[in-house]
């Protein structure tokens, strides 16, 4: 079976006053239908820029300089702007952290969803509204008929995010890119949405890329995990492999620093230093000046260490524990 989304060597650079920085550096991964890929990283790791690069939403001074983004056998990077626009929302859609990036505040929910339907598929407005209502029902919105007539400000944050997800689902896309979609929500509402998303992936076979900084969320939601650091994917594997037996020292450090698994009041294991600035990366492995396992070898570019399909970009990956 071919993957719904296959990314090869994706590279995005930004021209800044301090020179060109590489925000996404040779990123490759693929997601099969019905699977959820968790893309995890801290701020500045390039996880969101990766999401935007997939959809061709990078603006000046940034540009995607290299790589392929293949959605159901079409390379999005080879398409004309018009053709790409016809793919967005139909084959690939995006859910943002702030649902108001998706929703128009002065249009009724039904009107804007029907518009999103008819952009890609000519049909009567009544039929489009019917599709919108069904999509709202799919994401667990109670009495969807009434919500069609509501304006975004009449809905709570959690409801708006559901509407944004329902809008992303309107054309049954092969791929949904979700960028921190539950970060701004309360835990009880986040729990509801995570449960719905898991169900959607299972039932509609949509491939989902879930971008987040929250390790607990990906560990409980995702099938596969990519860990990003300074624009690179430093570790990739199934959720079980990456969480249960991390190979990259950065992943290990990140997992250890989550409170809740240590005796209360004790020192948390911490990664020294701070998240790097892309304009001042060390040579070789970008993590080496914070890494407990670093040696002189790490000044050269790290190789991809393989443990079956589980990989780590590291000179000194962790052995079995």
């Amino acid at each position, binding site marked *: 079976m071919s993957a719904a989304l296959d990314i090869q060597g994706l590279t995005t650079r930004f021209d800044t006053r301090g020179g060109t920085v590489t925000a996404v550096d040779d990123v490759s991964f693929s997601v099969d239908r019905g699977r959820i890929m968790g893309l995890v990283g801290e701020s500045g790791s390039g996880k969101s820029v990766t999401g935007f690069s997939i959809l061709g939403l990078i603006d000046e001074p940034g540009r995607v300089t290299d790589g392929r983004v293949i959605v159901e056998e079409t390379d999005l990077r080879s398409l004309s702007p018009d053709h790409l626009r016809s793919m967005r929302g139909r084959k690939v859609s995006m859910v943002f952290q702030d649902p108001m990036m998706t929703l128009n505040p002065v249009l009724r929910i039904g009107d804007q969803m029907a518009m999103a339907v008819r952009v890609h598929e000519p049909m009567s407005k009544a039929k489009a509204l019917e599709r919108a209502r069904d999509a709202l029902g799919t994401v667990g919105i109670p009495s969807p008929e009434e919500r069609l007539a509501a304006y975004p400000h009449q809905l709570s944050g959690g409801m708006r995010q559901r509407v944004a997800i329902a809008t992303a689902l309107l054309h049954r896309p092969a791929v949904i890119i979700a960028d921190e979609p539950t970060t701004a929500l309360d835990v009880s509402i986040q729990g509801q949405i995570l449960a719905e998303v898991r169900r959607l992936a299972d039932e509609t076979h949509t491939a989902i890329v879930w971008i987040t900084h929250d390790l607990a969320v990906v560990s409980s939601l995702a099938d596969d995990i990519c860990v990003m650091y300074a624009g690179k994917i430093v570790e990739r594997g199934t959720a079980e492999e990456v969480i249960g037996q991390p190979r990259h020292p950065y992943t290990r450090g990140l997992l250890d620093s989550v*409170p809740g698994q240590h005796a209360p009041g004790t020192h948390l294991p911490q990664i020294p230093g701070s998240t790097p600035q892309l304009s001042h990366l060390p040579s070789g492995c970008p993590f080496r000046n914070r890494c407990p396992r670093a040696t002189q070898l790490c000044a050269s570019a790290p190789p991809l260490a393989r443990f079956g399909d589980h990989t780590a970009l590291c000179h000194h990956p962790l052995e079995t524990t």
Partner: protein
Amino acid sequence: MTAPLLEIDTVSKRFPLKATLADKVAARLAGRSAGGAVHAVTDVSLTVERGEVVGVVGESGCGKSTLGRIVSGIYAPTEGTVLLDGKPVATGREDHVNKLTTRVQMIHQDPFASLNPRMKVGETISEGPRTHGIVSAAEVGDKTRALLEQVGLRGDYADRLPHQFSGGQRQRIAIARALAMQPDLLVLDEAVASLDVSIQAQVLNLFLDLRRDLGLTALFISHDLSVVRHVCDRVAIMYLGRVVELASAERLYAEPKHPYTQALFASVPTLGTGRQDFRPIKGEIPSPIDPPPGCAFHPRCPFAGPRCRVEIPRLTDAGAGRTVACHLNDGGVGQEAAA
């Protein structure tokens, strides 16, 4: 036994809503008074002993930040009193609050908003103690450097501006500024919520060190259950303005009693291998403008009975220092009338 350092006694805070002209007309026609109020905090009582760290946990709109601001003397409560060492932290009502003490210091969530971008870090830290005569002009420089070192930064950073620091470093500066006032009580309002997890661990470790070295007393406000468990001795769970459960962290996490606490714990994703079976709380958080009658949680509660819809549950003793505001713990929820 000595009196607790902080005593919050049946504190309520309501924010009146400004009525629009249309509201006023509608109210006049209907023969009622215009304008409601946001019931941010209702009947909260809580004590913090010297050297204790008490967590306040809840979702947005539960009133935890408002409570923190009342304790800091930024808001005056609508009803009730807040005493620090037996003396009120503020006088006045509503718009005319007079903060009476510098002994409570607050640390805010966003270190990008809480530091003056045009002020050198050293000035930011020393402004308070100089103004209040806590340090003399001669020793200000040394004190400031010592504070910066205490929070894990270099003393010569005092001459730098906030934009030269990362988020984690800025939060350390905010902590140094609070400590400079030699406070008896710290109020931390989501102090690590905006930090990356690796940086959050650093700041939590700093807090634990400072607590050990200085015997800090703190009210630790957070939505993050695992962070609270790590640093707090006792925890109050708030829902829609009220404390619904209060217990030692150990007991609360071992066995949450209130149905809301249970549901909250069940919806939190935990780090582990294998898919988690989410059992989310149904429904949404009601509006604090018009809270449901009876127990505020009853529309979402799987155990709710007729009594929950009419009678507000009081905090009652559930053994071993735990109190719970739930009818299940206080005589039952009542029987449904036969249809």
